[in-house]
């Protein structure tokens, strides 16, 4: 038996080797490189191999960097909040109200927009919200407004709206999966024991759905903080987020150490915020086991 499990371990390790080495080569090595670069000095057209903490000093003291970091963090938190709040009732509806044989259709309908060109979807929001866009031209055409509304484009709100739209399925699916796992008899028990519908939701459904909500929050929060397309297209380049700043330092200004330090800091911030969030919600995750 022991030799059997040993050969099984060897087989498993052999099988996992090709994808693992690919990820080591194409993901781990590059990540290791930018971590190393972030501690080196920038020279003209090259990276000088002198250890320094100046890049991080710059990242943490420069007011522009700080404002861009805070904006990225603010935007992605706002997007996460909006997306998850809007998505929860939809996941609840599909899981607990829709008939079982119709669920697959609903999920299919929800995922289709996600698979269509991200760039075009983002651009379409610009078309909808723009100065001469769909909303403004319709409203002026109907005589409801005289001047196009300017507050709906090139600002943080339009970035939040666009991202909330783009990440909607990411929030719905994990919550749906968590709701599907709930034993339906628990909900009936809550009702039978005299709880109101609202209290059953609050004390039974929501705590049991929390692992899904937590997954949704992380799945939306982590990629949005590094989004490049939306601030570029919707913000018109005037409201950069951290991804735009990394790109400018790395390529336009050719300061790879500083660009690397920005990237590493952004990853650290994401990791710390996610860690704090998981820690605050640890009791919901323990329930699942």
């Amino acid at each position, binding site marked *: 038996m022991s030799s059997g499990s040993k050969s*099984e371990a060897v087989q498993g390790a052999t099988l996992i080797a090709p994808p693992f080495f690919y990820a080591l080569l194409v993901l781990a090595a590059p990540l290791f490189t930018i971590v190393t670069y972030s501690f080196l000095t920038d020279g003209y057209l090259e990276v000088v191999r002198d250890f320094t903490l100046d890049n991080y000093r710059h990242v943490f003291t420069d007011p522009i960097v700080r404002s861009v970091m805070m904006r990225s963090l603010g935007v992605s938190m706002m997007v996460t909040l909006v997306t998850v709040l809007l998505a929860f009732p939809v996941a609840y509806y599909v899981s607990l109200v829709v008939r079982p044989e119709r669920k697959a259709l609903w999920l299919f309908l*929800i995922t289709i*927009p996600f*698979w269509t060109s991200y760039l075009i979807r983002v651009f379409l*929001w610009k078309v909808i919200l723009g100065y001469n866009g769909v909303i403004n031209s319709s409203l002026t055409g109907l005589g409801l407004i005289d001047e196009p509304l300017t507050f709906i484009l090139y600002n943080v709100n339009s970035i939040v709206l666009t991202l909330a739209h783009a990440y909607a399925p990411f929030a719905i699916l994990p919550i749906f999966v968590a709701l599907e796992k709930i034993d339906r008899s628990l909900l009936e028990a809550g009702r039978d024991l005299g709880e109101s519908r609202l209290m059953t939701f609050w004390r039974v459904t929501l705590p049991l759905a929390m692992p899904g909500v937590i997954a949704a929050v992380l*799945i939306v929060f982590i990629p949005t903080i590094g989004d490049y397309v939306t601030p570029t297209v919707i913000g018109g380049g005037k409201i950069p987020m951290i991804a735009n700043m990394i790109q400018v330092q790395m390529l336009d200004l050719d300061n790879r150490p500083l660009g690397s330090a920005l990237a590493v800091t952004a990853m650290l911030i994401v990791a710390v915020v996610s860690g704090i969030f998981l820690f605050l919600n640890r009791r919901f995750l323990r329930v699942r086991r």
Partner: protein
Amino acid sequence: MRSGALQGGGLRIYALLYLLFLYAPILLLPVFAFNSGTIIAFPLKGFTTDWFAQMWADATLRRALTNSLTIAVSSSIFATCLGIFAARASTRFSFRGKGPIMGFIMLPMVLPEIIVAMSLLVVLLGAGVQLSILTVILGHTLICMPYAIAILSTAFSSLDPSLEEAAYDLGETKWGAFRLITLPLVMPGVISALLISFTISLDEFIIAFFLAGNEPTLPTYIFSQLRFPALIPMIMALGTVLVALSIVLLALGEYFRRRSLAKTGGKNTGGLL
């Protein structure tokens, strides 16, 4: 009972409105793709198919399409092959460090793409590698792999191990059993993984933007055209074609995913993710 029906009704209206919000931008695509006005605004001018003709005649677009197809086909094949190894290993065997290794392989799913693209770019430039569609394939394979693994793991885990054991007992070699029993049973999952990887790669912008050098791909071509207002109607036409294409691919992927579940006796629990 009445209040229950009422609550369901309210939620239903909300869910339908939410679907409308999800689809609103996409529904505008065909509207403006067939509109003869050059400005994307209401009221509409008239019907035209000029934008599709203009799109068809664009040589750069055709080059971008060829590049994108080459990249998407190659990356989806590489990602699915690597995914088969990982999904098989994670569902069938237990080995040391399985959790961390699988977590690491799945990491690109949650890592911001700009980080993947930038770190890879820095290494490639540092190593003196010429940027081309090959470097894009390298990056796309990495980001498609976790999605392929997620789909393939479902296919492999709903597989009954006794079928393989029966094949061994009847004298098949490991490879023979895999080729004759396992692979045909997970085939729908493999096709589904190929289609999803293909769709992701075809649509991916960030990695293509930074790693393609001077070669255009569809998304980077679209991005470069967005600056010119006169070209927007043509982009709307292109968007219409792309959306129609994705829906067809997705419907195919969904069809094969369901067949895979039916074949291996699994329960249909829903979506593609």
